[in-house]
């Protein structure tokens, strides 16, 4: 009766597979061209001049030209739920580490 070992192994595997990255995977190289395709949705809020968040009421931030590290951290924190914003948490849920790296690569390449 060696049941505990397989159970422990299963648990370990489950945690390994499902544990989300605590911080952005800096080792993932971003593809800015793919990031360009992934960011059409972002424009609906971040691309309308003067557009404001519903509540609390403030301008949706300027994110083009921020560093890829900052952007990847922000998206990863939204995906993990450690940074709060209803819309951004939902948006980030669907992104893989590669998607986040790609989006960060594209947005960080933007200049004035």
């Amino acid at each position, binding site marked *: 009766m060696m049941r505990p070992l397989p159970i422990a192994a299963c648990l370990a595997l489950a945690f390994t597979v499902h544990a989300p990255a605590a911080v952005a995977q800096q080792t993932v190289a971003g593809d800015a061209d793919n990031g360009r395709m992934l960011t059409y949705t972002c424009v609906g809020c971040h*691309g309308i001049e003067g557009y404001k968040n519903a509540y609390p009421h403030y301008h949706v931030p300027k*994110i083009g030209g921020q560093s890829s590290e900052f952007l990847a951290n922000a998206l990863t924190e939204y995906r993990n739920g450690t940074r709060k914003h209803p819309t951004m948490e939902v948006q980030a849920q669907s992104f893989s580490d590669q998607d986040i790296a790609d989006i960060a690569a594209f947005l960080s390449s933007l200049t004035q």
Partner: protein
Amino acid sequence: MKTSALGLAAALGASLLLVACGGAPAEPGTTRAQTVNALPQGRIAEGEARANVKSAATGQTCLECHGAEGNAPLDPTYPKIGGQYRDYIAHALQAYRSGDRQHALMSNQAADLDDQQIADLAAYFASRPAQIRDLHGVHSIN
């Protein structure tokens, strides 16, 4: 004696009502508005001075991490904040202060800021030249 006791009770009741309605005047330096719109008017010059004041909690100023005019972050994980929207900067500081948003340095940096200081800092950094931009037109062909 009886009238003064009555007056005292009335004053006490009135002050309790004020507190309950959130209208009690807070001491300077202790107001903690929850939304951007509840902040006082920001002042650029006072914000610039505040951006150079070392935080008691972290021993660092805003500019020591975010760089000159908020546009030269010392670490790539720190954002550029020069030219960011005034109300967004204020919102971020309010969120760090309340604990809604967490960062090893910023949570402590914002913890002791009062509403006027947040409004001033937001006014100053928003007034600096922007190296960041919104996404208007970034997908157009030309």
